[in-house]
């Protein structure tokens, strides 16, 4: 049943005006103190908010220590898998985030962190260090930032910032689509042997190159590990040549590799 806005506002106004009289309030306080007299109170003072002060003090001490030992500066260029990476993502970046007091500033900073995570994976790849563990660390930190952005999509009391929300949804769906694509290819390779010999010494580099083409770091962060996927493919390399189903991504993969090997 629909209600008139005017009726609702009137009801709100009347409820809002309901208060206790001073006499009732005074009687309440007397009763409360009678049940728990002040004289029996323990000496520990009631102070709220100290835990947050302790946290800030502890964090400040850690940061000062890190800066004074040069650790903080060294961590700025660290990559997933480096022992200083945790210092960067769990101490310095949250501290920098806390220096942005408005929601808009915090979200802009989070978006810059997302870009930084993408650049880190690209750097890992260039250095040949894109291991499963490193990429997963990167992915966990990235997911956390995306989660914060999803919760922080509101910039003000006026309403939801649809542009940011839309960007986050788009980013998330890219990650999910990409993850599904890689997962599908891996599963196909595991179940259907490719038509390729195992003895060609250039095979590793060819397969590696092909898998790297699938994982395009310019679009989204890496979801998997190139080296691991190469190993998976190599495991199912030819024991017995079997026909590969039409339309299978493995088929196109193996055809290209076959072409490159001039088989």
């Amino acid at each position, binding site marked *: 049943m629909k209600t008139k806005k005017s009726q609702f506002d009137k009801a709100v106004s009347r409820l809002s005006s309901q*208060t206790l009289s001073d006499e009732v309030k005074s009687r309440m306080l007397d009763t*409360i103190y009678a049940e728990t007299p002040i004289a029996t109170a*323990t000496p520990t003072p009631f102070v709220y908010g100290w835990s947050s002060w302790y946290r800030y003090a502890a964090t400040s001490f850690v940061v000062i220590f890190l800066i004074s030992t040069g650790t903080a500066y060294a961590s700025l260029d660290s990559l997933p898998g480096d022992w200083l990476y945790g210092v960067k993502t769990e101490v310095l970046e949250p501290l920098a985030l806390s220096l942005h007091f408005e929601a808009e500033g915090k979200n802009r900073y989070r978006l810059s962190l997302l870009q930084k995570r993408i650049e880190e994976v690209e750097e890992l790849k260039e250095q040949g260090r894109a291991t499963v563990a490193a990429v997963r660390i990167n992915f966990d930190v990235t997911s956390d930032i995306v989660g914060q952005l999803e919760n922080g999509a509101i910039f003000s009391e006026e309403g939801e910032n649809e542009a940011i929300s839309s960007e986050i949804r788009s980013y998330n769906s890219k990650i999910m689509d990409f993850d599904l694509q890689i997962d599908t290819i891996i599963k196909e390779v595991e179940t259907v042997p490719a038509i390729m010999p195992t003895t060609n010494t250039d095979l590793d580099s060819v397969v590696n190159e092909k898998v790297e083409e699938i994982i395009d770091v310019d679009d989204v962060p890496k979801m998997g590990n190139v080296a691991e996927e190469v190993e998976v493919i190599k495991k199912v390399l030819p024991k017995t040549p079997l026909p590969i189903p039409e339309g299978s991504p493995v088929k196109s993969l193996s055809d290209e590799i076959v072409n490159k090997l001039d088989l």
Partner: protein
Amino acid sequence: MMETNNTQNKVLFESLFSEYVDVVYRLCLYKISDQAVAEDLTQETFTRLWKMMCNGSRIDKPKSYIFQIARNLIIDHYKSQKTLSLDALQEDGFDPKDKSIGPEVESDISLLKDSIESLETDYREAVYLRYVEGYKVKEIAEILDVSENLAAVRLNRGMNKLREKFTKS
């Protein structure tokens, strides 16, 4: 030292009492629709707060804690009411009309409940605190013990849903 600490506690407690006693009373009234019970629950809420303070317990978020106590007492009241039948109460001379609030306020509360309680659980409290108490997002977040952004999400979506329920007058 002991007297100073007790005095500090008392000052702080009375400050919280002064600021929130009517807010808690209105919440209890909205939920229970019974003036006497709302007063009792309000008093019990602050009694428990005072006892916690006297025990030396650290309460980092007093606003959130006060509302949590009030909510729990309201739930306990509902549970206790289920075990009593109205017939049994009337046999003992209880007349529900004696303890009810005025018909106008009762009607107002009923209308508000029809609107607000039909929203999703997450949105109800935020909408109630905004409309009835006039709290801003920051205060709502403190009371509900959530981030400001999450409070704003709940509030905005709740208000949008609520507007859909209104007819054009």
